[in-house]
């Protein structure tokens, strides 16, 4: 019993770290640009398909492909920010919701047109090899996903705390006008933040894409998970999103294992947490009431 539970926790943490990667981008964009990016999941999808094309089509190494997926999704994010977010600055929040929804429909159906609706697999060959440690089994791929995810999150945390651009991001989040007066190029910080967010979503796509199958509609799933996590952690709260992602991953995996009929309501666990948190603690689990 405890061994099964522990196994499910390990599996949950692996997925949860990827949830965190997706959600961090969404929460950064909300915290700094005040924008809910409904197309966020599409960059996750783009990252997955980019990884697929590079690994299966060109035979590149998985890690090289992941790096290119990160860069590719970031560049796509720069374009998206320029086209759908910046022109609507200063307008009501609803207008940006609609422009990003339009972008999401455009990208998703564009992918459907390009790659067709059939699910594809990023078969790495070495992914399924099991590693056993103290009664726990983890495949080599899952371990890779976990390690890459943790490394990226650590790098991001360092970046936001210590790097020059990271500090600029925090300054703009705190007070945009004051930051602008201090000579911080606010527009460029906006674009940069958006690109960081979509880039991380792209890598997340490459990571989870290798564990499951990939298809053009996968972005919907990702954006929904990211919403749950962002709300759980408090909107705009980066550490909250990281912890929230892991909590959601674990709750889903443990819940699916132990609830009656659990796996069919697996996705419902996220929504239930979302609604409970919003109704009881709308500032997020770790936020302080403003």
């Amino acid at each position, binding site marked *: 019993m405890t061994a099964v539970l522990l196994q499910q926790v390990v599996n949950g943490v692996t997925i949860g770290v990827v949830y965190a990667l997706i959600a961090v981008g969404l929460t950064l964009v909300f915290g700094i640009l005040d924008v809910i990016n409904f197309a966020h999941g599409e960059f996750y999808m783009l990252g997955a398909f980019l990884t697929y094309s590079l690994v299966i089509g060109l035979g590149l190494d998985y890690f090289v492909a992941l790096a290119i997926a990160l860069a590719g999704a970031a560049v796509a994010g720069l374009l998206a920010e320029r086209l759908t977010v910046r022109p609507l600055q200063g307008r009501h929040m609803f207008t940006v919701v609609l422009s990003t929804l339009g972008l999401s*429909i455009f990208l998703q*159906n564009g992918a459907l047109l390009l790659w067709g609706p059939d699910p594809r697999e990023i078969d790495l060959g070495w992914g399924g090899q099991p590693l056993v440690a103290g009664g726990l089994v983890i495949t080599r791929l899952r371990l890779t996903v976990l390690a890459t995810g943790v490394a990226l999150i650590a790098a991001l945390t360092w970046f936001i705390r210590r790097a020059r651009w990271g500090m600029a991001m925090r300054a703009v989040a705190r007070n945009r006008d004051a930051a602008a007066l201090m000579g911080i190029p606010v527009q460029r910080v906006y674009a940069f933040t958006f690109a960081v967010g979509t880039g991380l979503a792209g890598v997340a796509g490459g990571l989870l894409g290798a564990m499951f199958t990939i298809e053009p509609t996968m972005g919907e799933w990702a954006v929904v998970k990211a919403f749950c996590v962002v709300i759980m952690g408090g909107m705009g709260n980066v550490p909250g999103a990281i912890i929230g992602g892991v909590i959601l991953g674990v709750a889903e995996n443990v819940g699916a294992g132990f609830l009656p009929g659990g796996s069919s309501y697996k996705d419902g666990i996220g929504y239930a947490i979302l609604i409970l948190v919003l109704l009881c603690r709308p500032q997020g689990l770790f936020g302080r009431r403003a």
Partner: protein
Amino acid sequence: MAVVAIALPLVLPGSYHQHVLVLAGIFVLMALGFDLVLGYLGELSLGHAAFFGIGAYTTALLTRSFAVPFPVDLVLAGLFTGVFGFLIGGPSLRLKGPYFAIVTFGFAEILRLLALNWTSVTRGPMGLPDVPHAHLGPYPINTELGYYYVVLALIGLAVLVTRRLLDSTVGHAFLAIRENEELASAAGIATFRLKVVGFAIGMVFTGMAGSVYARYVHFVDPTALSFYFTVTVVSMVILGGQGSIAGTILGALLLTLLPEYLRVAERARLVIFGAFLMLAIVFMPEGLQGLWRRFRRRRTP
């Protein structure tokens, strides 16, 4: 306007165009319910499709299992959806802005999962087929034209109710809430209670739209609650111009007709649709309504 609406299907040739008009009408009704929340209460609900689905499932279940006759199931579907509006709007409306948008989205997804998994009642993804046609007394409503006039009558009713509401003290209170909720509250307006009432009324229209839809297509399945419907309605209202009955109707017509007639583009249809939405909002963020106002301002110096 009313005359044009009544005569329109008679001049259009063929039942396909009439079919598109019925769909447009159902969307207009749904969009009017949505605009009551967005345009007059100032809150963006992302769970709108769930209420449409509740209305549709209510009618499907009532008519299939209990043979409830036509206007009764419509009224019951509207009321039942309104009750759900209270139940979901109540707790959700304590939140504002992005939080409200996301909590309504969460509620809607939970209801969709319920429709998908509560197979003993909803038959899950197989849906509920053979919803019978409506009968008005001895006369069956079984043509596109018949449904068109049913929907038109309901739209007329919704517009009337919305107008009366907005002209009443309640309506003035709505606008005060939208413009500045703190100030409205300080002026003695029971802001929260009024918002819940407004939300529930909007959901009654939406449930009725779902009810007619179930009758018209004879079939309901969980896709009636899908986020795609919500996106469509949000687009209609924001593109038409929120807080305007004419704008909402225009937006709903445009966005039903566009994807329908884009069917010639086949697989690229939704790609074009997405690009259109994106560009439309970037180039006219105040919707058709705003464009019209700008046009008029330029003409009258």
